[in-house]
């Protein structure tokens, strides 16, 4: 693990959070199930650029040059900057074009980078430089037992654990990339998803007030 990344100077960030962020960067730099190491970093770059410009109208946004396909770019940018505007028709087009597994992996990259970038912004810290591509081969591993449960892509059913944690379950490595951050950043030592009383620096209602406000600003129904 690259311990030189995510050094939170002068801010006492829990080590499990910093570790989760380092693991995310290490994993991001490697080929995934469907995207090469280079593609994964390109997706992250495009997503970061889109999210930074989220207040701009879509046609006023500018992006770094890239070799990604138009479909991949559309997906990465829209999920990063305009996720609340996604509907079934748009998502179905992406899934048909990219494939459900590749789409799930792309979502996980965008979501992980968005979460970590927003955390840095909340702390008043600059974004962590994205890692350099580090090789590896795509393994195309998808979960057995994924089926249509009414979402835009197949999900594992039945599922143990919070419902939202199966959103990306079609591709276990993609789900792991994002959910590893959820486990450390949502509750952490203070309490877990099923504990209504948390014994940490924030009470559960304080955490849920923050969560619900972020969700409504993003017009997220879930």
């Amino acid at each position, binding site marked *: 693990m690259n311990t030189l990344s995510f050094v939170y100077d002068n801010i*006492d*960030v*829990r080590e499990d*959070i910093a570790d989760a962020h380092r693991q995310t960067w290490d994993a991001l730099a490697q080929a995934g199930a469907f995207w090469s190491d280079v593609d994964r970093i390109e997706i992250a770059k495009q997503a970061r650029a889109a999210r930074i410009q989220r*207040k701009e109208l879509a046609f006023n946004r500018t992006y770094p040059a890239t070799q990604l396909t138009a479909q991949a770019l559309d997906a990465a940018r829209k999920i*990063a900057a305009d*996720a*609340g505007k*996604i*509907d*079934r028709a748009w*998502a179905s087009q992406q899934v048909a074009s990219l494939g459900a597994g590749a789409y*799930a992996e792309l*979502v*996980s990259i*965008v*979501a992980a980078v*968005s*979460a970590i970038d*927003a*955390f840095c912004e*909340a702390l*008043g810290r600059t974004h962590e430089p994205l890692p350099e591509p580090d090789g590896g081969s795509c393994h195309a591993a998808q979960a057995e037992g994924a089926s249509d449960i009414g*979402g*835009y892509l197949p*999900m594992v059913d039945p599922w143990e654990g919070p*419902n*939202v944690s199966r*959103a*990306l379950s079609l591709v276990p490595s993609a789900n792991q990339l*994002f959910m590893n*951050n*959820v486990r450390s*950043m949502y509750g*952490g030592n*203070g309490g877990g998803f099923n504990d*209504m*009383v948390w014994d*940490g*620096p*924030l*009470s559960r*209602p*304080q*955490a*849920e*007030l*923050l*969560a*619900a*406000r*972020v*969700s*409504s*600003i*993003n*017009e*997220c*129904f*879930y």
Partner: protein
Amino acid sequence: MLLRESSKAIDLSIDTNATMGGEGAETVDHGAELVAFAEAVTWGLGNVDEVREAVQERLGADGFVEAASIVGIFNGLVRTADATGIPLDDSMKLATVEARKDLGINEFRGALNTL
């Protein structure tokens, strides 16, 4: 729903309108500062330095980092939920009928996939 249930667990009466930008944030300890923090970071507002300072002052260093952590991860979670269209599970769907209607959450585009 988790805000409501976790508040009940500690006998706290809360006003959920604050989650939609309405009044009532103060029904949760330091709720006004927390809502302002969520808004400043998520929208990228110009007052974020001032708001950050207020959260640090009211909640202390650990509370501030935890708040930043929740704001951060939910900026990721909303993207996975919206991009995958994951529907609410049946128990959550049933338990939130009134709240979703009252708060106008059913008007969000993603609602089409559950309702």
